[in-house]
């Protein structure tokens, strides 16, 4: 009955779970301020802060952040709440989420902030229909529907693991429900079964990064000297994908961005202002922004005009490689359709944005580089929701404790507590397991009773 508990502290990422300039986390629940202050460099200031004020500080080992404070009665939910802005990198987002979990904040269920706002009298309660719709989205059935719509295979797999764990649990429970001499059947501790399910669940949890990528997309920045053919390539990408929104011209910024898809991965594509030959001396604001954009990208494609390469392009390549170690990069030797094209140097991909020769190779290279190392295109099962991911991780760590305790020969009744925790976590994803279900397993699996 986790979902109708409304007196603990919850959190959620309010912005898109993708790389961006800033990310915003939102918390709600009594004790939010005190609990967050315990890890915050400006803790004292935060504790004293009034509603509606901002406090800047550092969370050791995570990020420096700005916190907006809402005392009880203020803010969206009407509960004591915080809005925490941190840097928008994937790493910062996940560190922040881990931190909040470790402070005892619980990942909010879909619609939970809104539900709390209703309960707190912050929203009009007479709209019963709306309430139902919100709480409705929180139902197991809706969860399952959503699950099967998005990914039927995921719930199948989790259910399979859960069923294996429930069987393992019944081996433990039968020993707790019956005296030593009343059980007929095998009661050796089911390490193997638990291990197998644990490993599968961990594998599933790891697909979350893939899921996030599929959900949020990767940032790909096209750069190079003026006239290198960036815009032609940009348009080629957009032409390939009929689902694109019309490009947004960079009015105040010196770049154009648009969404497209490469090998099924959603991409946010940026066409930038030309880099000057000697980008060492940063002169224009435009170049400054282009470089900032490149640094924030998941992948950059540096394009060189093979017919008239800018001077020192190899130096630029070397500098990019050196200065942006975290960003993946590709180097394209463009305009190879032109007769005066020079031979392709090492480390470049042959391309003609004009005739689209070499474009497929480029696309494949992009797809394989931006996919996480364990990205599996054939993977039929992908975890996309942070809440599911959290539950999977919690289940895996509970199972780790089970195996650890078993190694130390701790008492079965304590091990059962951790097993139950793992099953409960999986229950949040695919429905609870009642004590009657457990007894059914016991009675069907063991010849019990005097």
């Amino acid at each position, binding site marked *: *009955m986790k*979902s*109708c*508990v*409304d*007196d*603990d502290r919850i959190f959620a990422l309010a912005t898109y779970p993708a790389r961006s300039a800033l990310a915003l986390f939102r918390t709600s629940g009594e004790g939010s301020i005190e609990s967050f202050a315990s890890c915050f460099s400006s803790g004292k200031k935060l504790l004293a802060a009034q509603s509606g004020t901002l406090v800047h500080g550092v969370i050791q080992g995570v990020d420096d952040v700005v916190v907006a404070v809402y005392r009880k009665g203020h803010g969206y939910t009407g509960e004591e709440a915080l809005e925490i802005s941190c840097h928008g990198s994937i790493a910062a987002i996940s560190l922040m989420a881990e931190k909040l979990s470790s402070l005892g904040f619980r990942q909010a269920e879909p619609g939970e902030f809104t*539900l709390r706002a*209703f*309960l707190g009298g912050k929203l009009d*309660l007479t709209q*019963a*229909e709306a*309430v*139902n719709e919100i*709480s*409705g989205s*929180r*139902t*197991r*059935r*809706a969860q399952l529907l959503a699950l099967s719509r998005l990914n039927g295979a995921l719930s199948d797999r989790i259910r399979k693991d859960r069923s294996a764990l429930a069987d393992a649990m019944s081996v433990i*429970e039968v*020993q*707790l*429900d*019956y*005296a*030593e*001499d*009343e059980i*007929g*059947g095998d009661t050796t501790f089911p390490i193997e079964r638990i291990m197998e399910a644990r490993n599968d669940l961990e594998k599933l949890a790891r697909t979350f990064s893939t899921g996030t990528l599929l959900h949020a997309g990767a940032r790909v920045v096209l750069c190079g000297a003026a006239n290198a053919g960036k815009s032609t390539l940009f348009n080629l990408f957009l032409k390939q994908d009929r689902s694109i929104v019309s490009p947004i011209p960079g009015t105040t910024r010196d770049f154009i961005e648009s969404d497209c898809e490469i090998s099924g991965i959603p991409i946010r594509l940026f066409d930038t202002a030309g880099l000057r030959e000697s980008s060492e001396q940063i002169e224009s604001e435009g170049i400054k922004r282009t470089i900032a954009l490149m640094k924030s990208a998941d992948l950059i494609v540096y394009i060189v005009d093979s017919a008239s390469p800018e001077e020192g392009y190899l130096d630029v390549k070397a500098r990019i490689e050196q200065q942006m170690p975290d960003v993946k990069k590709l180097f394209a030797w463009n305009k190879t359709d032109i007769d005066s094209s020079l031979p392709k140097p090492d480390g470049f991909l042959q391309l003609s944005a004009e005739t689209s020769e070499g474009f497929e190779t480029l696309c494949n290279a992009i797809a394989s580089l931006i996919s996480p190392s364990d990205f599996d295109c054939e993977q039929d099962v992908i975890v996309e929701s942070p809440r599911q991911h959290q539950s999977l991780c919690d289940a895996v760590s509970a199972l780790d404790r089970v195996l650890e305790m078993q190694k*130390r*020969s*701790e*008492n*079965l*009744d*304590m091990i059962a*507590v951790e097993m139950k925790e793992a099953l409960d976590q999986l229950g949040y994803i695919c429905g609870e397991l*009642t*004590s*009657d279900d*457990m*007894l059914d397993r*016991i*009675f069907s699996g063991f*010849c*019990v*009773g*005097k």
Partner: protein
Amino acid sequence: MDYDVIVIGGGHAGIEASLAASRTGYSTLLITQSLDTIGRLSCNPAIGGLAKGNIVREVDAMGGQMGKLIDATLVQYRILNRRRGPAVQAPRAQADKFSYSRLAKETLEHQEHLSLFMDTVTGILVEKDGRTVCGVSTGRGHSITAKAVVVTTGTFMDGRIFIGEYDAPEGRLGEERAFGLGDSLRTMGFTTARLKTGTCARVSSRSLDFSKMERQDGDEPIEPFSFDDDIVQRTQIPCWITYTCDRTHQIIRDNISRSPLYGGKIVGKGPRYCPSIEDKVVRFPERERHQIFIEPEGSGTDEMYLNGLSSSLPEDVQNDFIHSVPGLENAQVMRPAYAVEYDFVFPTQLKLSLESKLYDNLFFAGQTNGTSGYEEAACQGLIAGINAVQKIRKEEPLILSRTEAYTGVLIDDLVTKGTSEPYRMFTSRAEYRLSLRHDTCDIRLTPKADKLGLCSPERMQRLESKLDLIAQLKQVLKDSKFDGMNAAAALKRPEIDLDKISENVPEVNKFSENIRELVQQDIKYEGYIGREDRQAERFLKLDNLIIPPDFDYRTMEGLSEESREKLEKILPENLGQASRISGVRTSDISLLLVYLRRRNG
């Protein structure tokens, strides 16, 4: 009014109900079909066991009698699951059946404000308002009035026993069923159905060859079930173990069609947790043998109970398969095994107080409500008796939460979910079993009983001194060092126990075994217990959100039809209970939460 409270039935529920009511000073009448069978152990001669032993101690902690009865009459004592952890350890004792029953009757006879009367209740009297119960009518034509009535009819309501092709209208072998009450209740509007249970054959001890069996002795020292008893000194008698063999199974398989269960004569559903031997053979064909426990029915009798051989096969088949078991070759059967089918009242027709929803001042307890087991019956009887009095006093009923007693789990399960087979308590039914240890029942429950007037001053003093000693020992450990660290912290390590610590900290030895054990568990599992406490706290928040009895689910917009039907049928008393009704959607619980919050402002 002739009495304040009438209790129908003298079984384990009836005993506790009548004592609870009379001990608080309310005039009580216990009516039973036979004064000679009060407190009879109809099935196995044992009290306690996993989860059940906890219930016995819960009943005792609240001023009930079961713990004292078994302490005084036990012939063997064991602590089960010693190796599996404190949360699931429990005491079990073999009882001297005759002494147990005789002592139960004697206790009732000596109880002030309590009268006993032999007759069969055939109807319930209702006031002119058509809603308030005011007494009973009996087979011999008496009408006896009372302010409250507690029904504890066990397996006797329209009971029928089966032995193969033979069947008889009896509630126990040779004892007439209670006829009339079932019809009367159905006429009043109650829904009933059939359940089935069974018991094993009794054989003569003289005819057994114990040399072919394993001997099973009891544990010493005996830790009393009752918190009032310091020591129990009883001579222990051994039990014996033997096994069925291929031939046993073959005989059963060859004759399975002669079982009324497999032949379709019995319609009631039997308990899966306590299967008959024919069930075991059919369902687990791969098992080469099944264990049989041979348990004495008492110290002054030759009858031995063949635990594990419950059956409803004909007597000639029973004789054959019994004789195929090593050690039982020449066994002389004194009473055959038999199945019994009886009426039970759907417990979803009851409130958490065990009062019926249909009629005021009418309470139900025990096997009538679909449970099985002496202990399960006793705890319901106690609660029904207490709440009958509370109702007369116009005070709030005693409702135990799932977080504080197996009794609470049991009643909540029954009235919220109902049952389709005889309901037995298991530790796995409880969400917070670490908190339901048998050695802490008094700490959790005695203060509640005290408030209701069910506790002697001495009992509260004993509890206070126990709490004091626990605190003292914890302080000693906090102030001492062991292995270079705080002794309390050292105790948390799996390989360290209090005995080990006492080598360095001799002060520990000043405390009794009970206190040491309790403190050891408290400290060792502090982390888990703390986590469970926090979960329980959250759980209780839902239970504390009361749904007013007049709450109109039809005014709730957006509630699914399926949930509305279920909610209107069960009429949950709080949000927690509502959330445990099977088939009620989580979204509807959220919605209900919103409405309740609005109502409460």
